[in-house]
């Protein structure tokens, strides 16, 4: 398993410059898909996969050494767990009537505007954010673990 000169190093100047320009735009577009999940096509899963695309572009074009400086294993693991717990907590809010009852839309203080605005549709925006965070951190952790295989010390 030899390592030709592309394993820990980056991919050249042209690729790095284009990646620096494109990664923030992909991030903003993915955040738009996640946040407006109840108004336009999209939602939690699609937006999370799009933001993970930005992370993968960073890993491929800047190399493994640069990625190891910015990747914190315990932080991403904790964020994935927090995403799952917020999703379950939002489902348990209406536990007085039923398990998945949409209490924030029927008689709640905050998320019951006119249908069509950003602050509407009960617990749907909260769940979209939780699932988007979970998918994004999970995919980046899995692909960094594949790239880091047997190269923990180099």
């Amino acid at each position, binding site marked *: 398993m030899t390592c030709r000169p592309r394993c820990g190093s980056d991919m050249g100047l042209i690729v790095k410059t284009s990646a620096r320009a494109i990664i923030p735009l992909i991030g903003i577009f993915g955040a738009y898909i996640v946040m407006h999940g109840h108004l336009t096509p999209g939602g939690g899963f699609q937006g999370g996969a799009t933001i993970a695309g930005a992370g993968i572009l960073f890993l491929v074009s800047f190399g493994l050494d640069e990625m190891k400086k910015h990747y914190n294993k315990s932080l991403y693991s904790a964020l994935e767990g927090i995403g799952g717990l917020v999703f379950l907590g939002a489902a348990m809010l209406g536990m007085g009537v039923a398990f998945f009852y949409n209490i924030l839309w029927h008689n709640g203080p905050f998320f019951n505007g006119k249908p069509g605005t950003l602050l509407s549709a009960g617990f749907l925006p909260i769940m979209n954010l939780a699932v988007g965070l979970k998918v994004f951190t999970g995919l980046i952790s899995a692909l960094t*673990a594949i790239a880091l295989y047997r190269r923990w010390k180099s």
Partner: protein
Amino acid sequence: MKRTLAYLSLFFILGVLLYIANPNYGLVFGPGGKEWLSLRYTDNYYITHGLKEVGGMNIVTDIVFDYRGYDTIGEATVLFTAIAGAIALLRPWRGDES
């Protein structure tokens, strides 16, 4: 011997599936008008009552997070378990000092 039996059964499965794709006695593509109200009444209920009961304009997100939220909880659990298993398999093992 076993290989020819496997390929013959594959041909048989393909024959049965192509027989199903005939619209006269099988799957019908695109019901319309009265047939849609009698064959797909669940979709009709979600379209006409989704905006008032849940409040989201995107009916697909409505279904995924409110009408069928149990399936989304199961899917989130499968995602978490698979990522945890894949990362646990790619860690340094005990007799591995290279």
